[in-house]
């Protein structure tokens, strides 16, 4: 089963939930850190690196100036303005390119070929019971989704995988959540937590994924998150108490299940609840977005 741990708001405890969950859900689980802008799971799951990180690149256009006659077809086609035609010269802006390959196909002179542009790395680390795969976006590169797809290519064919998603609700989150089996939305019982939970719920419903909520720092704030989950019939899969010792263990890079073993049962119960969660838990989801419009 592929379980994604996500949240609209940052800092609600996604990595905490994902890393601790991976440690209690049996041997041979893969933890994939899809927060490639700020990968943090390795700070908590300390493993041995399995060889050199793999370089991930995006195919970007390169102009053969001998063949190019400056007709401008590539620049007119590019939806991302990654090619600009100045007089008879074509300028390429690789940082804007999504790597669709369209310019190469539309060029009537066959003057464009693709060349790889590095965007980041994917590294595999082995710890006791967990294999950690983490993506790391190069600083200054705007495009996270292709790197996230490269991380997800490491999801094992059999067995369980836990995905640590980036915060937010836009492209990097969608790239992470697509084709997962279950989503855990981590939130906190505050107005910010609730507002961002609602946004995240809209996204997982849009994608038609079964999901539940884990409430972190559960006894801070107020009861509005629980009331919302009740009204929307969203299962609450776990509640993690607001305990300064948890915050301190986290600050030192320790797993809660190791530093405070009394919390182990919270994550074991979360795992059980995810497994037994009904596939139809997400009642308001559209059956499929593909077939109708």
């Amino acid at each position, binding site marked *: 089963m592929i379980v994604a741990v996500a949240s609209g708001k*940052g800092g609600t405890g996604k990595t905490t939930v994902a890393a601790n969950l991976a440690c209690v859900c049996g041997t041979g689980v893969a933890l994939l850190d899809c927060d490639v802008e*700020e990968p943090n799971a390795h700070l908590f799951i300390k493993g041995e690196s399995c060889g050199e990180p793999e370089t991930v690149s995006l195919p970007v256009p390169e102009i053969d100036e001998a063949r190019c006659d400056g007709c401008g077809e590539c620049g007119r086609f590019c939806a991302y303005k990654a090619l600009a035609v100045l007089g008879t010269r074509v300028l390429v802006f690789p940082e804007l390119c999504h790597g669709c*390959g*369209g310019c190469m196909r539309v060029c009537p002179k066959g003057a464009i070929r693709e060349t790889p542009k590095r965007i980041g790395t994917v590294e595999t680390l082995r710890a006791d019971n967990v294999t950690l795969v983490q993506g790391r976006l190069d*600083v200054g*590169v705007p495009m996270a989704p292709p790197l996230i797809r490269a991380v997800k290519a490491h999801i094992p064919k059999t067995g369980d995988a836990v995905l640590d998603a980036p*915060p*937010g609700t836009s492209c990097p989150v969608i790239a992470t959540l697509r084709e997962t089996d279950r989503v855990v939305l981590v939130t906190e019982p505050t107005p910010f937590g609730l507002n961002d939970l609602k946004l995240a719920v809209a996204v997982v419903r*849009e994608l038609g994924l079964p999901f539940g909520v884990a409430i972190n720092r559960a006894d801070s704030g107020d009861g509005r998150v629980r009331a919302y989950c009740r009204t929307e019939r969203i299962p609450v899969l776990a509640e993690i108490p607001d305990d300064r010792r948890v915050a301190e263990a986290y600050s030192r890079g320790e797993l809660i299940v190791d530093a405070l073993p009394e919390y182990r049962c919270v994550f074991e119960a979360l795992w059980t609840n995810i497994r037994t969660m009904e596939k139809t838990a997400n009642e308001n989801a559209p059956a499929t977005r*593909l077939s109708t419009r």
Partner: protein
Amino acid sequence: MEETIKPRELVVISGKGGTGKTSVTASFAALAAGRAVLADCDVDAADLHLVLTPQVAASHDFKSGREAFIRREACTGCGRCAELCRFGAVQPLKRPMGAQPLYAIDPSACEGCGVCVRFCPVGAITFPERLCGEWLVSETRCGPMVHACLAAAAENSGKLVSTVRQEARRLAEERDLPLIVTDGPPGIGCPVIASVTGADRVLVVTEPTVSGEHDLARVLALTKHFDAPTFVCVNKWDLNPETTERIERATERAGARPAGRIRYDRRVTAAQLEAKAVVETDAPSAEDVRDIWKKVKFETGN
């Protein structure tokens, strides 16, 4: 004729999410006392409005890019689109045995490149503009505010960020306000780059945890890359004083300036529950935030 002063923009970001960026920005909004336009550029998960309770004066559709759509009645099922799409957005539909195959675009995967549209041999694919959300101009008790909401599962949050900043600047010039205070998104990717490009000053709010420290290094590399003068403050500093000191030393080594510390204070959540900025309450940490504001607002030092 009076010379107009170009408004200056302070952008608050964090690298790691949930470090208190928005709480700090809301306090700055209150401390700016009507002299600033406020911009919420965390368009993925905007929260500033929960504290500043804006009255929306105008809303505008945010359209960005296009998305492919296969007209079922025209599709011959040749599969050329599926072959060419590099984003896995063209998917075969379930069909009865022996029936002609059909394809559809998954809008959550379509990046709007137009390759399938161009190369469909029967012209069965349309390419309408994509509605990605809306941006709003509002009035708050602390001054005018520009904010946005991204549609669920939409993309191009970077462009929406640029739109919000542009409008905030326009509004500041129009109303002759000297300041723009911007609440930025977490991370270091596209929306963050769109937030810090051309900012007059950046404040990074971090926390003394292994992840806060790790993410700060990356975010400082980013602000250096984009040449933005950067300050750093440590929220909940007393959670781990050693890490706080290490962070402040690393800040200076990276060419940024420490701007102060904010104590661990449960009253911050209480303020949020009352939809108040921390400095509008008597929470102990309000004093810490005021000290930081004195350092980062534009009048002193530079």
